């Protein structure tokens, strides 16, 4: 036994025009991991491998201490999975879906399902085809949450939702985590949603994990330095600075391992540090992806 809900090591999957390379991802029990990547980065493929729906070419995958895909049936009893491209049966009611799921899962929590119906403003007797997109997402989440799974895997669950619906769903996910034994893997390209609820963040791009660490560590380490460079002053290459954008006498340096000494180092070189700014997760994500792609092009 160990303390990880998800463990992926050295996982690769190759398609004709896309490959997932050497994926290493650990989600500790009781934590929310945000998986952020642009469209086509490999988030959904990673999640499908986790669920045993796609078999990896190489590497080890363990979910809730079960080897995937070999032990996927046992693992899926305790996994709640919802994805943006998952649809319920249009011609049937939400109540029919609830009865269907209840007939499978012995742990179905009927009072909680009723509570979620109220909180999400859903009517059990309504047919799925009569629901809006937001209501459909909420209905799917209701079916997942009322099973009381140990691990929630959510693939872009908030895509296409209005701000109110997104807020309701994120609030519910946060309240689910009141039970400390639960873990969530939450994939999205909406960094605001991920930032709001995640403990840890993993960035993925072009089939590779770029970085994976605590959210607070990201927010602490990444900074933007606004500099003024008098004529004739050349900015030095400093460790922890991953990029400098120069426009006339003004420059913006991005740090992925900020320490206060960087300010002194620039000033010693003759530059004037106007401001040191914190970065949002979205800005960190974009900077990270750009830096990684530039490095990839240089290496190529």
């Amino acid at each position, binding site marked *: 036994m160990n303390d990880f809900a998800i463990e992926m090591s050295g996982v690769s999957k190759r398609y004709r025009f896309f490959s997932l390379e050497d994926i290493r991802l650990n989600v500790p029990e009781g934590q929310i991991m945000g998986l952020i990547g642009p469209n086509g980065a490999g988030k959904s493929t990673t999640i*499908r491998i986790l*669920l*045993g*729906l*796609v*078999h990896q070419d190489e590497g080890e995958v363990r979910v809730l201490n079960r080897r995937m*895909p070999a032990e*996927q*049936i*046992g693992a*899926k*009893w305790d*996994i*709640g*999975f*919802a*994805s943006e*491209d*998952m*649809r*319920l*049966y*249009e*011609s*049937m009611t939400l109540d*029919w879906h609830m009865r*269907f799921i209840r*007939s*499978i899962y*012995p742990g179905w929590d009927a009072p909680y399902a009723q509570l979620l119906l109220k909180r999400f403003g859903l009517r059990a007797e309504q047919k799925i085809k009569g629901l809006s997109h937001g209501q459909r997402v909420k209905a*799917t989440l209701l079916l*997942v949450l009322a099973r009381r799974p140990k691990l929630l895997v959510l693939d872009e669950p908030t895509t296409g939702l209005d701000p109110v619906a997104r807020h309701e769903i994120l609030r519910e996910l946060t309240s689910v985590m009141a039970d400390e034994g639960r873990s969530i893997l939450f994939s999205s390209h909406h960094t605001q949603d991920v930032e709001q609820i995640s403990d840890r963040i993993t960035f993925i791009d072009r089939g590779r994990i770029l970085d994976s660490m605590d959210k607070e560590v990201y927010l602490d380490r990444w900074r933007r330095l606004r500099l003024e460079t008098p004529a004739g002053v050349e900015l030095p290459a400093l460790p922890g600075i991953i990029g400098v954008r120069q426009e006339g006498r003004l420059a913006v340096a991005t740090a992925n391992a900020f320490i206060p000494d960087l300010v002194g180092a620039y000033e010693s070189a003759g530059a004037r540090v106007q401001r040191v700014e914190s970065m949002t997760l979205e800005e960190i994500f974009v900077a990270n992806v750009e830096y990684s792609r530039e490095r990839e092009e240089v290496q190529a």
Partner: protein
Amino acid sequence: MRGSVVGQLILKDWVLYRTQLLLMIAGGAIGLAVVLRGGQGPFTIGAVAFFVAMVLVAHMLPMAGIVNERKNKNLAFLMSLPISSTQYTTSKLISTFGLFLISWLTLVAAAVVLIETRGMAPRGFIPMLLILALLPFVGFCLMTSAALVGETEGWAIAANVACSSSYGLIWTYMVQVPALTANAAGPVPVWNSTVLRILGVELGLIVLILALTYYLQSRKRDFI
């Protein structure tokens, strides 16, 4: 009540498709009722309605139960349940096969009973009836296989078109085979070697297609 997950999936398909199925059985039954009116005209019209109902069931089940489930993105919902891809295949084969068998057996049994008890057609026609009725059965298996293994609507439509265009040709050929037609108007069913050989080929094809489907599905590494 809580059964196995595969059992619940089979039950789900029954609930989802029973109405269409019953409507099609009713269509076939109406065809038989028309044949009972007697005369060449009603016989032709009724027989066509009977076989059209059978063909519709054979084509509807794989399209609605497998192709549309994938196209409408219900498959991701099902595969989030504690089942493997092999169990999904098992549930689909049992449910579609079972639903088809219900309608096929109902229609064929009704036709045989009406021949035996009401003289709807000569008793010698029974072997020909079975041979003709087994053809949509083979078509059903082919389309189910294409829908499951091919995974795309294109494959299912291709199988659909291939089967639909073959029925007429094969039926036309069958009713011209002397070993089949010679006894069709007779008072007793004659199970000669030609009849048995054709029935054997049809049944063999059904078993072969189903086994091949299972084998190909079990070798898949990416299911969704």
